[in-house]
């Protein structure tokens, strides 16, 4: 355990994460020494220009992608392999089409050897939380995109991970569903007290959800600025008082977006 001055516990720390990609004939440096500390119970949103490697960074934290340099520390210990304590919610949900909704939610529990009744109890609880109880026995093709994302979140929560990693989970949703989920997400966070790292390109979204917003620079990315959002909860996206925080973030982000649009491959 690492103690900061405030006697909080650093749940996850990324030190000097560097990542290269092979693009046709040359290597591109995507991440250039990312340093990030996330305390237990924080809701961190990462924003940055398109292609800056936010998702890649998240996958590295999840252990699904390799890195050239740097380390990820979980509860003070270095981790490389993927594991159920850092569950990733994918952009497209990645629900399994051959399983029912509740079987999907129970997938990780089944792998972990948890007996059937317990599994059922857990999955019911989280489906309830996401208001999807009626669809427990449906197959995924029968769900709307918004519902699928809710199942994906339920599946992740059912694993009771220490850290929830969310990769632009609301990007494919219509505005109304997204707004509803923004409220739900805050409620879930308050209830479960999870540490969440949430990647998005939507600044308004980030400001509604986050305890702090981390701005990635353009490629090769570094952490440009961390903007703390100190505002009461629950936050509504139409709340005018959030505009100030949005501007603070945009001040850091805009130049990066401009620079980034110049060197798209």
């Amino acid at each position, binding site marked *: 355990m690492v103690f900061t001055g405030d006697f909080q516990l650093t749940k996850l720390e990324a030190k000097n994460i560097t990542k290269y990609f092979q693009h046709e004939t040359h290597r591109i440096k995507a991440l250039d020494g990312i340093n990030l500390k996330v305390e237990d119970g924080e809701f961190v949103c990462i924003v940055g220009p398109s292609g800056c490697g936010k998702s890649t960074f998240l996958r590295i934290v999840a252990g699904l992608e390799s890195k050239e340099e740097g380390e990820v520390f979980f509860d003070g210990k270095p981790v490389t392999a993927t594991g159920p304590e850092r569950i990733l919610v*994918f952009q497209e949900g990645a629900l399994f089409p051959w399983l029912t909704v509740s079987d999907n939610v129970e997938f990780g529990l089944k792998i*972990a050897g948890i007996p059937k009744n317990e599994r059922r109890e857990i999955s019911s609880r989280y489906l309830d939380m996401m208001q999807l109880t009626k669809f427990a026995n449906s197959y995924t093709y029968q769900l709307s995109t918004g519902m699928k994302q809710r199942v994906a979140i339920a599946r992740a929560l059912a694993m009771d991970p220490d850290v929830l990693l969310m990769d632009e989970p609301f990007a494919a949703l219509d505005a109304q569903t997204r707004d509803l989920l923004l409220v739900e997400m805050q409620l879930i966070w308050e209830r479960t007290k999870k540490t969440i790292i949430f990647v998005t390109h939507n600044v308004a979204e980030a400001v509604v959800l986050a305890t702090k917003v981390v701005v990635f620079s353009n490629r090769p990315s570094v952490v440009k600025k961390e903007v703390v959002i100190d505002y009461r909860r629950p936050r509504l996206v139409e709340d005018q008082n959030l505009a100030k925080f949005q501007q603070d973030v945009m001040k850091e982000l805009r130049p990066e977006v401009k620079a980034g649009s110049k060197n798209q491959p």
Partner: protein
Amino acid sequence: MKIDLDDVANAVLFFAVFIGIWQLVFVLGIWPKVSLPSPYAVGESFAEVILNYTLFKGIGITLGRLVVGFLISIALGTVIGLAMIKFKGFGKTMSSISAGLLSFPSIAWVPFSILLIGFNDAGILFVVIMSSIFSITISTYSSVRNIPPIYIDAARNMGAKGFSLFLHLTIPAATPSLIIGIRQGWSFAWHAIIGAEILMSIVGLGHILSVGREFQDMGLVIASMITIFTIGLLVDRLLLFKLEEKIRSRWGLSSDR
């Protein structure tokens, strides 16, 4: 099982018209009796081989060999397909070989089998296996390779690895594609068993057909052909087609939702 009355009526009418034309052609004597027998003669042959149990024994033997051979094909084919994935060099080479041998005529295996294995059940199984195994290897290889990586990531992230990853992710994710390979393998195996039985067996459906020919008993030849056609159709429609449909509907791939 929903039975569409219209479909049944169409099938029955088709069948009736077919038999009607057949009887008419026969009565007109367009072909000599020994080349084209009457529907009655075929019916007689059917009655004969049913009553002396030859037909049932033949069907039993043929299906028995077929099932054994096909199951071996599936088991071995899957293992080879997975090995092709694990060992990339082997995978590439084997992929070309499988493609070449996929449509290799099954009866061309017969002389080789007689010499290598022998003029016996094992020899027949060899022909059946060689004819169907490449459908399985190819479909295993491509099915598993085409599993969207995001599924694998999600499963691994949730703690699945090694055998549990294989059992809970790889197999179900590959199944819709696999079942297509299995259906194809089955039809190749069916071709192969009949051909092999005509050429190297003294029992079974293919042999009954062959006996008909040896003795210029066209009634028996046609009765055998009808039996072979019917069984092939029944297995495909009642078993494999339904299985494929069930999987597809669960995945939401079915056309009538």
